[in-house]
């Protein structure tokens, strides 16, 4: 399950560190103690930045790095589609063999296909993605309030 792509993201994470954001969330994986603090900065419907800090295993760290790489600069609609595709892949229990279409959407994130066979690790891979979803919702509702 430890693909080179994953190890690479683990050893050289993208966009790590906390920077300014519109909303911040803190998510925990209680089964293993993995934690992430994640901030989202939006510019209208565009994701300007996803910054994060946390501790966790190679899978959760690499996944946050991939997320940053994939989502920063995307429109929210597109980002949500990526998130949903990633979620689908991770919940597939190893049953989905990513095809070209999926690879186009997920890029490096397809390397996590193998992780989906390990239920205890799926949560690690999803931790940052769930945090991102939560933070984005928060940012949007903040915006709605101040608008």
């Amino acid at each position, binding site marked *: 399950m430890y693909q080179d792509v994953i190890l690479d993201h683990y050893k050289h994470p993208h966009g790590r560190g906390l920077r300014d954001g519109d909303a911040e969330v803190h998510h*925990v994986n*209680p*089964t293993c103690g993995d934690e992430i603090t994640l901030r989202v900065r939006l510019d209208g419907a565009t994701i300007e930045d996803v910054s994060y800090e946390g501790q966790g295993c190679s899978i959760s760290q690499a996944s946050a790095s991939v997320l940053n790489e994939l989502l920063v600069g995307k429109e929210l609609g597109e980002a949500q589609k990526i998130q949903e595709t990633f979620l689908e892949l991770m919940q597939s229990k190893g049953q989905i063999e990513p095809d070209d279409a999926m690879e186009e959407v997920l890029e490096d994130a397809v390397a996590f296909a193998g992780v989906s066979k*390990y*239920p*205890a*690790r799926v949560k690690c891979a999803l931790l940052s993605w769930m945090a991102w979803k939560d933070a984005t919702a928060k940012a949007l509702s903040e915006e709605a309030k101040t608008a």
Partner: protein
Amino acid sequence: MTQLPGLLDTEAIRKDFPILGRELHDGKKLVYLDSAATSQTPSQVIDVLSEYYERYNANVHRGVHVLAEEATALYEGARDKVAEFINAPSRDEVIFTKNASESLNLVANMLGWADEPYRVDHETEIVITEMEHHSNIVPWQLLSQRTGAKLKWFGLTEDGRLDLSNMDEIITEKTKVVSLTLVSNLMGTVNPVEAIVRKAQDVGALVVFDASQAAPHMPLDVQALQADFVAFTGHKMCGPTGIGVLWGRQELLEDLPPFLGGGEMIETVSMNSSTYAPAPHKFEAGTPPIAQAVGLGAAVDYLNSIGMENVAAHEHALTEYAVKRLLEVPDLRIIGPTTAEDRGAAISFTLGDIHPHDVGQVLDEQGIAVRVGHHCARPVCLRYGIPATTRASFYLYSTPAEVDALVEGLEHVRNFFG
């Protein structure tokens, strides 16, 4: 052999239950008529238990090693099976406990510690019925003592049914919870619940069903019941001892506070404070009864392979026959419905002045296992002015020949003490 329409192929089924081949007292074949106390266990369940310990045993939820993942998959797979068996909208609504009693205590305690609008306190009322098992009486008595809430109950009619004539006095605006059994374990009565549910919903009370005597014997659909909570127990439905179920509506499980604290039920713990995992784990403190849940899953598979509709039809036919034959026995008085309509396969009776203990003992000498006493439903005995009953109860492996053996045995009892 007596042939009745609707009977299962008990010859085949009985082969699944090793214990039914046992002989007692120098060669008397076991006639097991005590399934309402606990059902027997098919090889399909016993083998799954052994296999669990021989191949997969590990603690669940916390491990990354193969055994831990397999054990977790088996344990959570059992939750899926149970959820489907009772038509739960979500698997996360199925909480594993150690027995139905714990399930019912869990609800009572949640409501005692809850915030509004669920909180039971001295200004509120709790409603049960006079035909409840002690496990659906004492938790509410304790809650009432601890909170000051008033405990009220539906009485019983002469023929063993709920007396709903004064429903509006019993369920009122103060009622926070109505908890009642679907099927009486002493009398076999199957309760009509729609009117009670409607009334409870009108006043905003939660409805708890004790399905301990229903889940083993008939299709159970928590959505059709419009229940808020449903409790039942594994050992009465071909499963192992040490496992029970509490189903609860997701929204309630989210809102209500935890009961027992410990490993598994937490999200994060520090010395100063803790947060809790989402349901069902919030209510499953400590290492759960893992093998027993897996065994219950196997029991559900077994029951599904036969079909709950078919189990119900079998028991209905058998009960009809048993009621008819028992009423032929002189001095025998059935406590509860005397027809097979809206009744389950537990039949309680008295036999003249002969104390049930003596009835049971003399039947036992003939290899016939019945239960005697108040069957953990003493208020029913008080209601009908009897100290105890003898109860014969049937299940999917019971046969008309066993009914005949019982009736013959009772003749012997009468002669002995006559």
